[in-house]
C-alpha cells in the first residue's frame, strides 16, 4: 500500500518520502523513537503517524477476524436488516404500494416535480406521519424540516396533523372497539411540537446545518426523518463555478447518506424542475444537473397526467419503475379518488 493513501497531512507525507519511506510495509518494523529521529519530528507526532499507518494496513491484511475486510457485512445479514426496515407511510396507499411500504429509512429519497404539484404538501405529510405511534404501525419519531424557500405554512401543518389524529381515532374505533385504554391522547399541538423547523438562507448555512446534524441528532435520538424543502433553491443561483457546485452537492449528499445510515432515519430531499433541451425538444428534468441525479438512492418524480397527480419511481435499487396516482386534499396527501386509477408499470 502506498504512502499517499492514509490520511496524514501533506508535510508529514513529504517528510516520510524524503526520509525514504515510500510504502507502508517499510514502516512496519520501525519504532516511534527511531522514526522521530529520522523525520526530525517530535516523538508524539511519530507515534500518531505510526498509529494511522498501522490502522490503514490493518484494513488491508487482517483476516484473523471473521471478516476479510474490516467493516464489511455479508449479503445474508443485510437481507435481514433490509426486511426489518421500517417504512414511513405517505398516507396514500397506492403511493405506499409502489414504494414497497413507504419511504425507506436509512436511505435518501429525492422527490421532484413542477411547482404546485404537491412537494411541500408531501414533505409536511411526512413530518406528521413519522410521529404515528408504534401501536398504529408508525415510527413514533420526531421530524426535522429544513426550509430553504419559506414554503412551510404552519396552518397547513396543523390541518394535516388534525386530520391524521382523526384518522387514527377512526382506525382505533374500528379495530379496538372494546379496548378503551388505547384512546388517542395526541393533540395537533403535540405533533407540531415534534417538528424541528430550521430556516436556511444560503447554501453555506445548508452545509453548516448538515454538518451540525451529527451532533444535533445524537442529542435528539428520536428524530426519524429529515425533510429538506427544497435542496435546490440556494444552489440555483450564486454559483459561477459549476465544478464547485457539483463537489459541494455531492459532499452534502454523502453526509446525508451517512446520517441516514448511522441514525436509521429517512432523508427526503425535495427538488425543483428545469427544462432541458435534448433531442431537439424541451424536456422536463429535475434540477441540479446530471451529477446530482446519481447521488440520491431513490428518486420519485411527481407529475400531472391529465387531471391527476401521479408519482413515478424514476430510480430505485429495489423497486420497479411504476407510477401511481395520489391527490392533495384538505386533509393532506391521500389516494386519488378517481375510479379508473390503476398502477401503471412502465
Amino acid at each position, binding site marked *: 500500500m502506498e504512502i499517499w493513501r492514509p490520511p496524514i497531512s501533506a508535510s508529514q507525507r513529504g517528510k516520510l518520502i524524503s526520509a525514504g519511506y515510500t510504502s507502508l510495509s517499510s514502516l512496519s518494523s520501525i519504532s516511534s523513537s527511531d522514526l522521530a529521529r529520522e523525520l526530525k519530528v517530535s516523538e508524539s507526532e511519530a507515534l500518531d503517524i505510526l498509529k494511522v499507518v498501522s490502522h490503514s494496513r490493518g484494513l488491508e491484511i487482517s483476516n484473523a477476524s471473521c471478516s476479510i475486510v474490516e467493516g464489511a457485512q455479508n449479503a445474508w445479514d443485510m437481507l435481514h436488516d433490509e426486511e426489518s426496515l421500517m417504512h414511513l407511510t405517505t398516507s396514500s396507499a397506492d403511493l405506499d404500494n409502489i414504494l414497497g411500504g413507504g419511504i425507506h429509512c436509512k436511505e435518501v429519497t429525492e422527490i421532484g416535480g413542477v411547482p404546485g404539484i404537491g412537494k411541500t404538501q408531501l414533505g409536511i405529510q411526512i413530518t406528521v406521519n413519522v410521529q404515528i405511534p408504534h401501536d398504529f404501525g408508525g415510527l413514533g419519531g420526531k421530524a426535522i424540516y429544513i426550509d430553504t424557500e419559506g414554503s412551510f405554512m404552519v396552518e397547513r401543518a396543523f390541518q394535516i396533523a388534525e386530520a391524521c389524529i382523526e384518522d387514527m381515532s377512526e382506525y382505533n374505533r374500528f379495530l379496538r372497539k372494546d379496548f378503551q385504554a388505547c384512546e388517542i391522547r395526541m393533540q395537533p399541538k403535540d405533533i407540531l411540537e415534534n417538528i424541528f423547523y430550521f430556516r436556511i438562507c444560503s447554501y453555506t448555512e445548508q452545509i453548516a446545518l448538515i454538518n451540525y446534524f451529527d451532533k444535533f441528532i445524537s442529542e435528539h435520538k428520536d428524530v426519524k426523518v429529515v425533510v429538506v424543502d427544497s435542496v435546490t433553491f440556494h444552489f440555483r443561483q450564486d454559483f459561477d463555478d459549476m465544478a464547485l457546485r457539483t463537489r459541494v452537492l455531492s459532499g452534502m449528499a454523502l453526509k446525508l447518506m451517512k446520517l441516514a445510515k448511522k441514525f436509521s432515519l429517512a432523508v427526503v430531499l425535495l427538488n425543483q424542475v428545469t427544462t432541458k433541451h435534448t433531442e431537439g425538444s424541451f424536456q422536463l428534468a429535475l434540477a441540479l444537473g446530471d451529477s446530482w441525479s446519481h447521488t440520491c438512492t431513490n428518486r420519485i418524480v411527481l407529475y400531472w397526467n391529465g*387531471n391527476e397527480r401521479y408519482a413515478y419511481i424514476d430510480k430505485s435499487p429495489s423497486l420497479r419503475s411504476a407510477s401511481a396516482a395520489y391527490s392533495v386534499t384538505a386533509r393532506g396527501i391521500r389516494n386519488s379518488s378517481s375510479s379508473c386509477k390503476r398502477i401503471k408499470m412502465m
Partner: protein
Amino acid sequence: MANKLISEIPLPKSIANVFAARNISTAKDALSLTEFELMELLDVGLTEVRSALSQISEIIAPPYQTALSLMEQRFQNEHLGGHFPTGLKGLDATLCGGIPFGVLTELVGPAGIGKTQFCLKLSLLASLPANYGGLDGRVIYFDVESKFSSTRLLEMGLRSFPEIFQMKEMAQEMAGRILVLRPTSLSEFTQHLQQIKVSLLQNQVKMLVIDSMTALVSGEHEQGSHKQQTLSWHISFIKSLAELSRIPVVVTNQVRSHNQNEAPHYSFQVQSRDATIETPSRYGSHLVAALGIHWAHAVTTRLVLEAKSGQRFIKVAKSPISPPLAFPFHISSLGILLLSDEGMELMGPEINSIHCQGHNEIINFGMESLD
C-alpha cells in the same frame, strides 16, 4: 451568517492562524471545500480539520424552532395570524385569512384583466387603520410600467370607505402612506431594494408591491436563459426581505404566448405523449405565465386572473393551504369585486392555464361602467 469571519469563531489558536494564513477568512470559504481539500490546503491532520469544521458549522447553523412555537409566535404577534385580508370574502376564506405575510404572492394574467386594479386596491387597504381591516402602515409600490393612477386610487377609496376619504386630511394621510417608485432599469430597482431592506422596519413599511416583475426583465437586452440568471438574485433577495420583515409581498407577472409543441414532458412520459391523454389546458389556452419555471417555483401563492367565455375569474393556482378554486369577478368603481364567494373547484392542471377569451368585449364594457 454565511459571511461570518473565521476570526470571530472560537477555534483553537493554531488552526485559526492557519486559516488566516491560507486566506480562508469567511465561514463560506471554509465550508465550500471538502475535508480533504482543506487538509491539503492547510496542511493539518484529518481530526483537526473535522473538529474545526464541526465547530464552524455549529456556529453558522441557524437555530431551530418547533412548528408549535412558530405558530404561537405568529398568532400572538401578527395581524390575523399572518394574513392580510383582501376584502374579497371568498378569496380570504380560501387563503385562510388573506394574503400571507413573509412570502411572495403572484398575480398573473393577460393585459387589461385587472392586476394593477387589484394592486391599487390592496395598497389602499394596507394603508388603512387596523379597525378598517388595514395594516396601518406604509406601502412601497414599484410602478415599473407607469400604470399607477392616484385618481383611480382615491376614487376607489371614496367609493369603498367614504367616511374616511371624504375628509381631505384623512385622504391625504392615507394616500401619503403609499410610496411610488418608478425604476427605469433593473439596476435602479436593485439599488432601491437594497435601500429598502435597511429602512423597512423603522419606516413602518407594511407591504411591498411590484407591478410588474416581467417589465423589469424585458427591458434588459439579454434573452433566453440569461433572463433567469438576471432575476435569480432578485428573487432570492425579495424573498428574504419578505421573510425577515414578515410583510406581504405582491408581485404581478405578465403572460406570453405558448407554442403548442412546447409543452414539455419528462423523458419517461414520451411514450404517452402520442396517446390520447390530452391536457385540457391545450384547448383554447395559448398563454402561459412569463418569467419561467424558476420564478414559478419561487412564488408561494399564485393567483391567476383570466377571462373565459366573457367572464373574468381569479383562480388560486398555487397555494400551500388552499384548494384550487376559481372565483368569478368584475371590476367596478370600488375596485375588484367577487361575483360569488363560493369558488368553483377546478381539477388538474386546468387551474394553471390562462385564458383570454371574450376579453375585448369586457374591456369596453368595463370602461363604460367606470364613469
